[in-house]
């Protein structure tokens, strides 16, 4: 099982270590540092590194490497999933997960880690149970604690840990009973030079924020459940009911949780809401290149595209760019060669464009590679797959909750090749 955990920042300092079994010397991380040095970028450090006596499994998030040390044959996905869970928990506890924040809350971090694993076996990883065991720090509580001498460790047995619904504690009470669901879809797409779709898929999630008194039993039904053929559920969802009736039936955890994530694959036609017209050309003879891109809406079902940001990694030969945007602001970093254009909203009547020239290193031949354009955007009130919630019902409790459903479509890894 998981032996130890080291947190390492991008400059290669170990700033926290935690051992669940015997202590493993931090020199084991030297193997990690070697790999880190070999990899050109932090993202490229391989997630599984063998050493003579241990294996190092790592994830890289928020500019921190979370390196787990294992000694026996343990499913690596188990370890990596757990590490991501650690990051999520920190984020949940402290709002952000960063080196200074972790250092500031080191004792809480240590206590949380101690609760999450016992001898390397996961113990409590649900954040609402953890929060019952160890209360997250708040300014108010710190003040109160200093005055009253009480602590931020709960002295109750976390009730949820024993009940049949381990994700929900008993005795929840709210004055306003509300249940909100966000259907969020991300489009991952690769668009080729000519504008046709090479690959496109939708990763969707339904995130919920449920604040309901007692033990409510909810059912959620869809207008078109057939879209959902590849789904992963929160443990609370009754799988049998879904299999037979295509209805989500569940006792919700208290607070924020991810009810469902789904995947609409390349097999179904995925609507592409934007297009990019581009003309990026280098000439062999001159040291100037032409650059022109225009972004426009495609299949948006009448909704507005907003929050558009265009980024592109330009070839190394590009020295500088002189560009004029028709709207928004753009930057080009001559060191990293990263072009970024914050477009904002797309007005279909007046399409945003960015035009100008690139100056190339004199005397060199034209670059071999073509820049790829990455696109970010948001569309409110639209689930691009067409998924629609039909109705939400509550059983088991008498009161009438307030219900709300929001839809949003975002760009995931949306790339246009030029």
């Amino acid at each position, binding site marked *: 099982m998981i032996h130890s955990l080291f947190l390492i920042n991008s400059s290669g300092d170990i700033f926290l270590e935690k051992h669940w079994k015997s202590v493993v010397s931090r020199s084991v991380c030297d193997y990690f540092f070697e790999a880190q040095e070999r990899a050109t970028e932090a993202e490229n450090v391989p997630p599984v590194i063998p050493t003579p006596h241990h294996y190092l499994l790592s994830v890289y998030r928020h500019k921190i490497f979370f390196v787990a040390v294992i000694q026996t044959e343990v*499913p690596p996905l188990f370890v*990596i*999933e757990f590490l991501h869970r650690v990051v999520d928990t920190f984020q949940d506890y402290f709002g952000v997960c960063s080196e200074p924040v972790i250092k500031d809350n080191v004792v809480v971090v240590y206590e949380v880690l101690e609760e999450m694993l016992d001898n390397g076996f996961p113990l409590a990883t649900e954040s609402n149970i953890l929060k019952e065991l160890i209360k997250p720090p708040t300014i108010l509580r710190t003040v109160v604690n200093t005055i009253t001498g009480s*602590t931020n460790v709960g002295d109750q047995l976390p009730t949820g840990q024993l009940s049949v619904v381990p994700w929900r504690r008993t005795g929840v009470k709210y004055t306003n009973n509300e249940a909100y669901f966000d259907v969020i879809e991300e489009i991952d797409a*690769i668009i080729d030079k000519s504008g046709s779709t090479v*690959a496109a898929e939708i990763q969707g999630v339904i995130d919920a924020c449920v604040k309901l008194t007692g033990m409510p039993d909810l059912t959620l039904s869809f207008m078109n459940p057939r879209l959902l053929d*590849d789904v992963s559920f929160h443990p609370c969802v009754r799988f049998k009911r879904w299999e037979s009736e295509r209805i989500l039936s569940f006792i919700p955890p208290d607070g924020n949780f991810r009810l469902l994530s789904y995947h609409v694959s*390349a097999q179904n036609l995925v609507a592409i809401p934007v297009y990019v017209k581009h003309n990026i050309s280098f000439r062999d003879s001159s040291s100037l290149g032409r650059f022109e891109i225009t972004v426009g809406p495609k299949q948006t079902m009448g909704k507005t595209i907003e929050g558009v940001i265009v980024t592109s990694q330009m070839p190394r030969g590009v020295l500088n760019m002189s560009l004029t945007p028709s709207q928004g602001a753009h930057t080009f970093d001559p060191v990293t060669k990263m072009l970024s254009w914050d477009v904002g909203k797309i007005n279909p009547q007046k399409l945003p464009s960015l035009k100008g020239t690139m100056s190339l290193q004199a005397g060199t031949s034209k670059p071999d590679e073509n820049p*790829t354009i990455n696109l970010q955007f948001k569309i409110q009130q639209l689930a691009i797959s067409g998924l629609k919630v039909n109705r939400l019902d509550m059983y088991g409790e008498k009161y009438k909750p307030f219900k709300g459903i929001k839809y949003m479509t975002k760009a995931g890894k949306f790339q246009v090749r030029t």
Partner: protein
Amino acid sequence: MTDSKYFTTTKKGEIFELKAELNSDKKEKKKEAVKKVIASMTVGKDVSALFPDVVNCMQTDNLELKKLVYLYLMNYAKSQPDMAIMAVNTFVKDCEDPNPLIRALAVRTMGCIRVDKITEYLCEPLRKCLKDEDPYVRKTAAVCVAKLHDINAQLVEDQGFLDTLKDLISDSNPMVVANAVAALSEIAESHPSSNLLDLNPQSINKLLTALNECTEWGQIFILDCLANYTPKDDREAQSICERVTPRLSHANSAVVLSAVKVLMKFMEMLSKDLDYYGTLLKKLAPPLVTLLSAEPELQYVALRNINLIVQKRPEILKHEMKVFFVKYNDPIYVKLEKLDIMIRLASQANIAQVLAELKEYATEVDVDFVRKAVRAIGRCAIKVEQSAERCVSTLLDLIQTKVNYVVQEAIVVIKDIFRKYPNKYESVIATLCENLDSLDEPEARAAMIWIVGEYAERIDNADELLESFLEGFHDESTQVQLQLLTAIVKLFLKKPTETQELVQQVLSLATQDSDNPDLRDRGYIYWRLLSTDPVAAKEVVLAEKPLISEETDLIEPTLLDELICYIGTLASVYHKPPSAFVEGGRGVVHKSLPPRTASSESTESPETAPAGAPPGEQPDVIPAQGDLLGDLLNLDLGPPVSGPPLTTSSVQMGAVDLLGGGLDSLIGDNNFGAPPAAAVPARVGAPIGSGLSDLFDLTSGVGTLSGSYVAPKAVWLPAMKAKGLEISGTFTRQVGSISMDLQLTNKALQVMTDFAIQFNRNSFGLAPAAPLQVHAPLSPNQTVEISLPLNTVGSVMKMEPLNNLQVAVKNNIDVFYFSTLYPLHVLFVEDGKMDRQMFLATWKDIPNENEAQFQIRDCPLNAETASSKLQSSNIFTIAKRNVEGQDMLYQSLKLTNGIWVLAELRIQPGNPSFTDLELSLKCRAPEVSQHVYQAYETILKN
């Protein structure tokens, strides 16, 4: 206020200050001090000096303070064992606390303190906690058993904790079940032989019930445990699969992958005609695709596993090519894995898309990735014949880009395409030649030289081109030098008139100026071939090369099957069986896929049931022809020159030792003119032919001409028992005939005459083929040597042991009986070489129960010597593979009664500490295995 204040006092007197604060009367001050201590500890500072002071803070009602002290204890108890004892009383008291949280915390912490003295006190509280009324305490205690086992395994066994733990598998609470399974699995890992997780249909049912209700982590443990179970028939397998399938929709990717493992394994037992089989296949694809939208680290592990899955069952993901398309900002380790899987999934249906993608990748920035993409185009050409032309033109486009490393990779793969489709794309040679100057990597240079040599007759200035390479001959790498040597010899054989000077130049460079034995030996071979028999040289060097075929990097089928059982583990990430890398001397149980067994009610006929799919249906597991060739050439040296003339010529040469290593390297390289494969099976029953390798290796050469290994004579019948007649003897096999070599000694005082011999019925029907002929009477103290020819047409009766032979010898004095054991290898016939495809099919066909494993200890041989030794005793190596530094020899032999025995011999060369060979034998008559093993041992050790 944040915890960072605990770091601020890093002055010299820090420890002293903390000590004072820890002993403060004020609760609040104490707690702050402990927090400071913990903070220092987390950043790796040594605060062990404060041990007694911190332990003093332990007796408190404040839960947080207690927890903090426990944290400290866990870290430092080991270094202060005597002090740690002070804490025991509090622990024991806490284990009785009315609050289950405190009870659990105490037992949990105690288990983490790795001090023997404390462990002793742990037993009683632990026993109570294992039976606690509160499931939270029970589940914590279950894990504690695993901790204790790690510290003191003997204690756990003596105290009977293992049985209590086993009982917890039937606990009413699913979390307790899950933790018990996890603890038992961990303990079992250090005792691979023990039967801790004894799974039967009842316990399986309990696990499946708990599976639905326990936490995600518990589900992983349970699924991994289920995967070790072998259902009794296909019905049970199906019902388990049905209950595991819902786990594929779990949000935790580790749960999904563990479920995939169970399904992949149990699927093996289901009949392909079953509707359910098809349903299951369909259900497997979406979760695997979903794994690819997770974080990159998870994707990486998933991709490594998918790589195995598509090799085992390509049909699952055949329509999902697009999800493996590489995204621009994927980390490099994900990109490379995706590329690999794309090639595996490439087929005629999707090749156009794949090629377009690969071409796109070839213009990316990352050099490693670009190289692999170019290689991938070549692999597509070889794999999907219809696409070859498009691939070649894509490669030509890429060569036009003049990007140096792209050009070099392209040339390397084009060479392979030429090998696969000879005489089809030679029109591109001109384009390739244009790029000659830009090649600076050995592999690309060697490939280009090979092309020039191979097609010398079509390239007008081939001699000039090769000559230009020759100028810097000494600076080239060995790979290039060898290739250049061969290419020039090819050129010479094709255009002898104008290149004589060139060939002499290269031969002298190779033989006289080089220190490299491979190069020198190859040079000598060519030299001699050319000077003694140019026709033969032509036949050898310019022989038609067998085609290379697709996918040379498929994982060997038995390894693949084993790895499928390890889906989701480190083994699957490294594509190595755990035995290859798991640390320490722990034996690792080899896992294998369950054979398909139909339930008793099944209507299937018994012939088809155990055999699995007919071999024809699984072309995917038949390894590439390409390496087959390499192996054949390595082992069966059957050049078109016949045996005896070669013997004489080699003797004439005088410098025979030069040829020792050269031949291997010469024939082992399948890039160059090797003898035609057709010549290989031609050597039937000719011991001289089989001894060819020995001939060159003259140290043992002449001696082994006789064929099988012959044991020294042993006394079979002592004179005491036979009124003065002593018989000693041995068995030999020579040129297909068996004989019994006897030595009769007369130790009596009278003359012996009228000898006759008779055999009792025996297992293999051995019988004298001729009467025992002792020509003259045997006078006292005289010894006579007789070779008695045997045949195997006598009557058969199974003996115990199998190779027991009862003999009666008669002379003028009396009849004497004795029995002897004959070594089985005298029964190995000369045509015991199985066709490779046949071998694969047979290997699969023979049920796994018939497989027997043996170890041949202390036998420091390498693969070559072992296989030549074995071959002289008619054990034929069919294929050789190098798997992670181990040589695997696949061998077959046939007994006189037609029984085939298939063998896999595992050798670890280059590892002097590992001189044991592992032998596994498969035979339809498993009783012979033991004796075959003995034969192996005898042959190899002599």
